[in-house]
């Protein structure tokens, strides 16, 4: 009886300590701003929730459209309510140049050499690899395209096709379709003649193009049969296939590989917690987890073995999808992006 009473008191004390000490743990909050949609849902399941479970650090989520204007306004006014922000690779470079994103200390994250080349930058560390691919509906298109570059073949594949309303990827594909070997694409595109050549190639299909802005649009355009084929981010199409049971097919040959990244905005209030999170998701076994929730691949070279077996064949960097591809050159887009966007807009308006 007495022993049981002591046990009870001990348990009660432990419980009391646990209850009273919880607010102290909960006070640690990490604010992450990501670009929403299926991708943020996947991050929540793969990283946010397990991280909170393991460390007790609560994650406060925010959403934005992926443009840095909002972050710049925060940094300029000295009021930065977010600790981490997910960004596209080209945007990391831009934010780094403009002094909006903090240069990272990789000794607090992971061994920089273990990342795929170009996925661990000065101001941003890679989250995943995604592919810019071609998608089509085999119930509409009788003959199957075999390469992304088939989008330029209006004779064999007549009908409207959708492309992203942005010069990046489209200019690269245009040059490759015009016969430039993939390893010389950026070299050619850096010359005025190369840019003219790319636009001339795009001219040949201009009247057949429907332009998309948001990542969710390509799947909608295919589903509503407004287009017979579309360029897209592979995860969005796979999502439509898996969860909406659409009959879409993905063409991997000629894909352009890009990385999603995460950065610390300058003046963030909890850099220590932010580094803790970056170190957590950069462990190979954790880096591989995202692939189970959305079909974007890991950026660590040693993470492939941890990817779930059923997820692996759908990833852009699965070995059978890497027969012919191009890695997006972010340095090039840092140099020529603004100029080419302006020229692209002028071209669209003609």
């Amino acid at each position: 009886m007495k022993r049981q009473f002591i046990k009870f008191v001990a348990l009660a004390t432990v419980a009391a300590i646990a209850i009273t000490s919880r607010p102290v743990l909960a006070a640690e909050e990490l604010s992450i701003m990501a670009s929403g949609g299926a991708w943020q849902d996947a991050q929540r399941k793969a990283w946010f929730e397990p991280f909170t479970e393991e460390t007790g650090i609560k994650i406060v989520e925010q959403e934005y459209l992926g443009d840095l204007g909002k972050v710049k306004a925060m940094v300029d006014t000295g009021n930065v309510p977010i600790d981490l922000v997910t960004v596209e690779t080209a945007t990391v470079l831009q934010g780094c140049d403009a002094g909006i994103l903090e240069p990272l200390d990789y000794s607090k994250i992971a061994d920089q050499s273990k990342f795929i080349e170009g996925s661990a930058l000065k101001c941003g560390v890679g989250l995943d690899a995604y592919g810019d691919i071609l998608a089509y509906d085999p119930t509409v298109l009788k003959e199957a395209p075999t390469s992304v570059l088939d989008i330029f073949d209006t004779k064999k594949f007549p009908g409207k096709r959708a492309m992203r309303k942005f010069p990046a990827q489209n200019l690269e594909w245009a040059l490759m379709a015009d016969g430039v070997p993939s390893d010389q694409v950026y070299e050619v595109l850096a010359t005025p003649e190369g840019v003219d050549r790319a636009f001339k190639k795009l001219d040949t299909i201009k009247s057949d193009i429907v332009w998309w802005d948001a990542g969710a649009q390509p799947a909608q355009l295919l589903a509503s049969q407004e287009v017979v084929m579309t360029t897209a981010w592979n995860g969005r199409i796979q999502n439509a296939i898996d969860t909406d049971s659409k009959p879409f097919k993905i063409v991997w040959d000629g894909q352009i590989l890009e990385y999603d990244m995460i950065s610390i905005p300058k003046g963030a209030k909890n850099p220590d917690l932010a580094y803790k999170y970056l170190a957590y998701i950069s462990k190979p076994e954790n880096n591989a987890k995202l692939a189970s929730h959305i079909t974007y691949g890991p950026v660590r070279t040693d993470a492939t073995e941890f990817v779930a077996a059923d997820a692996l064949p759908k990833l852009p960097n699965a070995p059978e999808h890497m027969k012919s591809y191009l890695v997006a050159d972010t340095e090039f887009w840092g140099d020529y992006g603004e100029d080419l966007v302006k020229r692209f807009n002028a071209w669209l308006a003609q």
Partner: protein
Amino acid sequence: MRTAPDTADAKSIAAAIRRSQTRERLRSFGLATPLLVLLLLSFGIPIAILLSRAIYDPTIANALPRTSVAMQSWSGNGIPDDETFNALAADLKANQQQGNISEFAKSLNARLPGARSQILKTARALDKEGVSDPASVVKSVPFWTSPATWSTIENGRHALTSFYLLSAVDLRWTADGSLERVPPEQAIFLRVFARTFLVAATVTLATLILGFPLAYLISSVPKTVGAILIIAVLLPFWTSILVRTAAWTVLLQKFGLVNDVLLWLGVTGTRLDLMYSRVGLIIAMTHIQLPFTLLPIYSVMRTIQPSQMRAAYSLGGRPLTSFLRVYLPQVVPGIMAGCLLTFILCLGYYITPALIGGAGDQLISNFIANYVNVELNWEMAAALSFILLVFTMALYAVFARVLGLDRLKPV
């Protein structure tokens, strides 16, 4: 005959009146002061600061203090002397060590595409140990021995700059100091400004054609029916512009309601591309703007007595003549107020063109938003905003001059 003291009296009376009026004015001004202060603090000053970015950009001047001094003796032709190259090397190295090099590289890259990586490369090379001849390190990068680089730096090293304002109207300086149009494949803004004004004018006209008869109907039917019609006009007006735009995308899309109905009626044989087109944009904008044109017209029409038209008829006026000479002149202030309101609001449209307009239907606000959010080039955004503001003001001035501002006041 008037005497001198009388004139003096008259003068003092006039002065007294003026004094009392001044007091009156000061009092009313005093009441408005809180509003004016609020407007100045929350509206005037921030706008002025943001717009000043269009002409004041000290990034390059701050990054190259030594080079700026050395360049004062430069003729402006070819490339400068070795002394300038040494100064540049010192400036680049200092920026690299202070971590400001990227900001400078980005700023010069906006004026000279491709400059960014060249600058970063040179700065990294200069920051290495054991650089004995920095000028030759700089010169070994072909970018720095190109005259175009130096004329860009020459233009950019002055903090007060006309670069952004000129770019906003598709102009630029040539190396020899004269103005020229930018090459056609880069010229975009004048076209977008023209498009913005064209769309605004079309929408204004469409709302007038639709709104005028409706306003007339509402003002002439019995009060209860009129109230119901007014509610019908106002109900969408109280709905968010984003919701209404989204609703139009549902209606206008290829397999949407409008196409279904047109096909069923046999008006068209194939489905029309209404989404991502100028027609769809103008339909949606006209719907959103209709109350803005209609309500001022209606408020004026309500005050016109029906007996006036009867009087005109009884004096022998034919319906059209009576309408044109008795009714219409009284409604003109309402028409002008409504049209001006709609036209100026249309100039700033952003969401509707972004969602419903095609690639060739983006208005100037879409480009301003792009420079603010995506390119982070707030100087260019400020310049475009400034030009839009000037165009709008000029148009307003012309409008006020030609038609008379006083007619806009309520009758």
